[in-house]
């Protein structure tokens, strides 16, 4: 697992003044290691898009400078940077989701509701920059994806991003398994069977989509039991647990936001109160006619100073709280990635089942034809040719089936490994979060106690007066 160099241990009471230029970044998975992979996104710049220069307003776009530093052996040199625009990020994201089906791939910017909520007060370009940085850091923290070609190319290759905007091979070719025989018989460009196994996409994949839809309906209503495997009970349980987790996380995430706001507010109001008393102090001192006023002004000053101090502590505490509770938002965002990975698996299974159905249909047709032709003595040339065509189709479909099954198994394994990793990291990160949160609360509460304790002592003469009086103006 990657550890970022910026990671400050959470169990150390942090009294660093907060640097406003530092965006709070998520701490990547907690286990420390020798390798680091640091990515920073900065210097947004406007550039002109020659392709669109005819239409006003659409001819500029923003590029961001992406600087990387790592000691992973996969990357040479160890420091490099590149300029990319947002469109490139979308491409990267699409490529990754195709190449790494079954993995929990962090959702890209503009796809994460959580991120957009947390950042909604920034201006747009800054929002993008922060989101981009978070996204790339998450990718860099993933044990498998950090070493992917796609990421490496994105981060290192200068100039135009050499990744295809969309493969959509399945639909560019002729719609997957449905048209396979036609392709093989020379109707269109050849398509490798492995490309068949890409999930059906919209648009030109309509036919395949309908086939698979029909199959999934058939599955759901149980009319034709796929002769292949049944859904893994363990998996279904996991799926439900993950859904539940997502629900609860969403709830906690929301309440955490509210908590952070409430802490911010109390700090601010304390500050305003302190300010009001400072003004009063100044006023009484300037206008003092009686000594009682000077005494009161001095008391007010003591109170005002303490109030301002306490206000600062509340606000400092809140900055730390925000950082800690950010872990919740991070993991909530990750549940989206999990859902995607589970969908990858379902799609793969659906493809397998569709192919099985196809195969079974083809085989029964072939059998019928054979039975019919055997009745005719000497054989029917046309029919015999048909049977041979069919048998060829069946062979190709069988190949596709084996590949589809392999793909399905691969995705299942990816799911499993990722779930293990997710569980382990989640436990560690959440425990750290809880500890950090609690330690901070304790630390600042102690500081605040000190501040007020001193004031209580300095004003204790008034307490003594109060207790000797029978009927107090209950103030």
């Amino acid at each position, binding site marked *: 697992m990657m550890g970022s160099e910026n990671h400050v241990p959470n169990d150390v009471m942090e009294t660093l003044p907060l640097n406003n230029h530092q965006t709070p970044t998520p701490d990547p998975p907690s286990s420390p290691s020798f390798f680091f992979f640091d990515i920073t996104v900065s210097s947004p710049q406007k550039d002109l898009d020659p392709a669109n220069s005819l239409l006003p307003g659409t001819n500029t776009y923003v590029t961001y400078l992406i600087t990387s530093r790592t000691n992973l052996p996969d990357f040479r040199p160890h420091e490099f940077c590149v300029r990319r625009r947002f469109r490139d990020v979308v491409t990267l994201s699409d490529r990754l989701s195709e190449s790494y089906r079954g993995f929990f791939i962090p959702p890209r910017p503009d796809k994460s509701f959580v991120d957009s909520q947390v950042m909604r007060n920034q201006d747009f370009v800054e929002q993008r920059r922060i989101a981009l940085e978070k996204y790339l850091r998450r990718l860099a923290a993933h044990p498998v994806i950090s070493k992917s070609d796609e990421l490496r190319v994105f981060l290192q290759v200068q100039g135009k991003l050499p990744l295809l905007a969309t493969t959509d091979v399945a639909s560019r070719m002729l719609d997957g398994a449905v048209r396979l025989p036609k392709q093989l018989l020379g109707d269109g460009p050849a398509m490798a069977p492995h490309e068949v196994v890409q999930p059906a996409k919209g648009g030109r994949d309509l036919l395949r989509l309908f086939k698979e839809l029909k199959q999934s309906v058939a599955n759901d209503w149980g009319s034709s039991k796929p002769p292949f495997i049944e859904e893994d009970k363990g998996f279904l349980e996991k799926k439900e647990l993950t859904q539940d987790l997502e629900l609860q996380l969403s709830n906690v995430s929301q*309440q955490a936001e509210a908590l952070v706001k409430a802490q911010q507010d109390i700090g601010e109001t304390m500050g305003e*109160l302190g300010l*009001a008393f400072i003004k*009063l102090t100044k006023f009484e001192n300037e206008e003092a006619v009686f000594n009682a006023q000077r005494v009161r002004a001095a008391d007010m000053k003591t109170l005002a100073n*303490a109030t301002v101090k306490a206000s600062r502590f509340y606000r400092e505490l809140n900055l730390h709280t925000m950082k800690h509770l950010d872990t919740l938002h991070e993991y909530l965002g990750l549940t989206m990635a999990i859902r995607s990975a589970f969908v990858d698996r379902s799609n793969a299974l659906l493809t397998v089942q569709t192919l099985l159905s196809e195969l079974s249909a083809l085989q029964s047709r072939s059998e019928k034809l054979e039975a019919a032709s055997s009745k005719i003595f000497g054989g029917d040339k046309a029919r015999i040719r048909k049977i041979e065509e069919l048998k060829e189709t069946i062979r190709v479909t069988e190949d596709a089936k084996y590949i589809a099954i392999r793909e399905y198994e691969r995705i299942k394994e990816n799911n499993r490994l990722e779930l293990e990793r997710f569980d382990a990291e989640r436990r560690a990160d959440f*425990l750290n979060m809880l500890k950090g949160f609690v330690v901070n609360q*304790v630390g600042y509460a102690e500081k605040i106690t000190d501040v007020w304790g001193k004031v209580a002592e300095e004003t204790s003469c008034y*307490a003594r*007066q*109060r207790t000797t009086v029978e009927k107090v103006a209950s103030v």
Partner: protein
Amino acid sequence: MASSRGPQSPRSPHPSLSLASSQPYLSVSVTDPVKMGTGVQAYISYRVITKTNMPQYQGSEKIVIRRYSDFVWLYDRLFEKYKGIFIPPLPEKSAVEKFRFSAEFIEMRRRALDVFVNRIASHQELRQSEDLRTFLQVDEEVMERIRSYETGLFKKKPADLIQIFKDVQSKVSDVVLGKEKPVEESSEDYEKLKHYIFELENHLAEAQKQAYRLVKRHRELGSSLSDFGKAVKLLGACEGDNLGKAFSELGAKSEAVSLKLQKEAHELLMNFEEPLKDYVRAVQSIKATIAERAAAFKQQCELAETIKLKEINLDKLMLTRSDRVREAELEYKELKRESEEATERFEMIVRLMNEEIERFQEQKTLDMGIAFHEFAKGQARLATAVADAWRSLLPKLEACSTT
């Protein structure tokens, strides 16, 4: 024990001590708020218990039932009679309908009314008031009769008050420039006092506003911690195992801390925000007294003017040996007497105010000192409780991560 401030002691000496020394004492309690009536007519009645050894009172103990408007009557009567004295302020008249019968509002009002009556009872001059005796002793029905009869007669019309305030705010410079006739005191001390009181109200109002907001923030923080705690507990149930337990513990602690915050919010309201509000009211009461002073001064000036004119007229009449001389002489004598009275009234107000302002400053330093002390104590208490609560979680969290 009793404060050695001299005759203007704001505190009633303990009854038992006074019995022995036969020092006059007058001690009042406003207690037992009870909702009476229904619907729009509903109101709160209070039990007012008086303990005294003063001879003007019938008996050593008396219990009567009073409502807010009765207190208002008392204030108005005292304000009329004791010009120059800062009459202790009343809590606000109306509240937002929703809160009029909330437990918190009723309690705060009860306390404020209790303070009000006791301040009167401790004031050397005010405690002698006949109206006070009436208020503390007559039956409910009698009180109601008195109140509704006299309220109409003696209440100053709002228009008059506004006019007086307008005068009070005009500056010396206007007089110097001859912009208007000098019906305003022009002494430096008076100007200074006026400016001080008006400015003070602004500053205090701001402080009180922030104090009230701070109370609200405590409640909001408490509420959000409680919601957070609940959500965290649910997450814990979902997680299970050690982590789940850790979450559950955290959730429980959040809820506990939330309660502490709610409690402290209440203390803050009673012991810090209310005293500040009381301070603001007191300053507003002083403004009303300043208005009275200005009115008295104006009257004195106007009478002086009138007398001058009458003198001139009288001389004229005497010269012409008019048969209206007698009449005019009598009128003149009458005016002279009135003028002397007006001057006396004004000068008494000035004298009283000077005494009052000194006492007021001392009293407020004491009141604020106590309020600040309570504020600091409360915040320290809260922070300690919060630290303790969270700290108790740490060993459990440690245990979770090692297993």
